[in-house]
């Protein structure tokens, strides 16, 4: 118990870094993903092709490799970002690719009748998208999006590999320095706690958005 109290400050500092990365990523992803999704559904052919390529590559390769690539290989092309910026870039590009696909599927799942009713009422394409389709899409993709959001938190454990001292790294260092597994267990508890909180939060959000059902 005393030992736990001793390591807690270090682990909490790591947790702080994990959370900082997490929040930044989450805030940036949605706008990007929505734009990509709309581009994929109704953009010009060339844009569709480019976006297809983007989602294909970023969904088809491991996040860890992308992280290494952004960190170690980008400097070869003259792009040197801070470790934090690298992590954010790799994560945002990766998760936005997944999220864009979710949103695209959401848009395409909206009943054709909704477009028709809007058209019969004289609404333009953009009015229809903004007022009718997107709001319903948001509701529909919410569960999948929340799922993604929770996975993302657990993925932050990977940032330890590019010199950031997140929760995972702090725990690891403590374990290897003290030859005790308690830090792992405390880290487990932290991750479990945070993801459970996230699950709760997102469930509330879903409930809020489901008033019309």
């Amino acid at each position, binding site marked *: 118990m005393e030992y736990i109290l001793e390591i807690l400050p270090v682990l909490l500092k790591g947790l702080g870094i994990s959370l900082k990365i997490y929040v930044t990523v989450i805030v940036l992803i949605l706008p990007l993903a929505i734009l990509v999704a709309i581009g994929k559904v109704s953009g010009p052919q060339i844009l569709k092709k480019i976006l297809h390529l983007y989602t294909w590559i970023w969904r088809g390769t491991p996040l860890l490799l992308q992280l290494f690539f952004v960190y170690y290989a980008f400097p070869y092309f003259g792009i040197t970002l801070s470790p934090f910026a690298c992590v954010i870039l790799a994560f945002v590009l990766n998760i936005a690719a997944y999220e864009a696909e979710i949103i695209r599927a959401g848009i395409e799942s909206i009943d054709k009748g909704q477009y*028709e009713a809007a*058209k*019969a009422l004289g*609404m333009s394409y953009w009015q229809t998208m903004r007022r009718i389709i997107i709001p*319903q899409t948001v509701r529909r993709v919410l569960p999948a999006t929340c799922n993604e959001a929770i996975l993302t938190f657990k993925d932050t454990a990977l940032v330890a590999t590019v010199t950031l001292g997140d929760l995972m790294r702090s725990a690891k260092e403590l374990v290897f320095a003290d030859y005790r597994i308690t830090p792992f267990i405390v880290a487990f508890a932290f991750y479990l706690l945070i993801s459970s909180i996230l699950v709760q939060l997102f469930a509330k959000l879903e409930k809020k958005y489901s008033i*019309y059902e």
Partner: protein
Amino acid sequence: MIRMSNIHKYFGDLHVLKGVSLEVKKGEIVSIIGPSGSGKSTFLRCMNQLEKIDKGVVEIEGMVVEAAGDVTEKVTAFPKDVRATYRKMGMVFQNFNLFPHMTVLGNVIEAPMTVNKTDKVAAIEIAEQQLAKVGLLDKIDAYPSKLSGGQRQRVAIARALAMKPEIMLFDEPTSALDPELVGEVLEVIKKLAADHMTMLVVTHEMSFARELSHRIVFMDEGEIIEECPPQQFFEAPSHARVKLFLEKML
């Protein structure tokens, strides 16, 4: 008011409308009847551009709004005027197609506000008027999911009416309803008839068609094969296919 001339429509290789012509005058109520798959919905949808026609001419109030294929008429009006003309048509669907994320009021004020740029206060006034007409003022804040089928369809009618259409198109407005709920929707349509609304109704409700319409059109395999007043239609149809159909239905 509306004149559809020699309309052809294909879905891929399927020739769904094979030269259908129909004229509807102001204040007239026309029922379209026919077996499933005969092209009734498609015909109605061609009228308000939910489907593009492959050949033929659509005229609304003397203005050619669509002309396709090998025809002499051309669309001469400005796109703006064409759009304005289409707005004179309200449409009610079989599956209501209400906007599920908006309340009843939200559904009805949406188009006046976004399309006509009516301000919110005025839009709500219009909406309340129309909802009163369909008898749903008390449900104004409910979401569609909380309504019965009949109530939903009445909201859909109010929503279309809020755009002040001069002609209403109905595509089987009661066929998704439980038998007990059909009455309340037909009641509303009868009210519109009493107000001399021009209407085109695709329906399976024979008694309704007989009672209300000025003319009945029977479609089969993409063609109109009978077109006459209801009495003649039900008592002395000239076409064998119609007789067979009526036997089955009644």
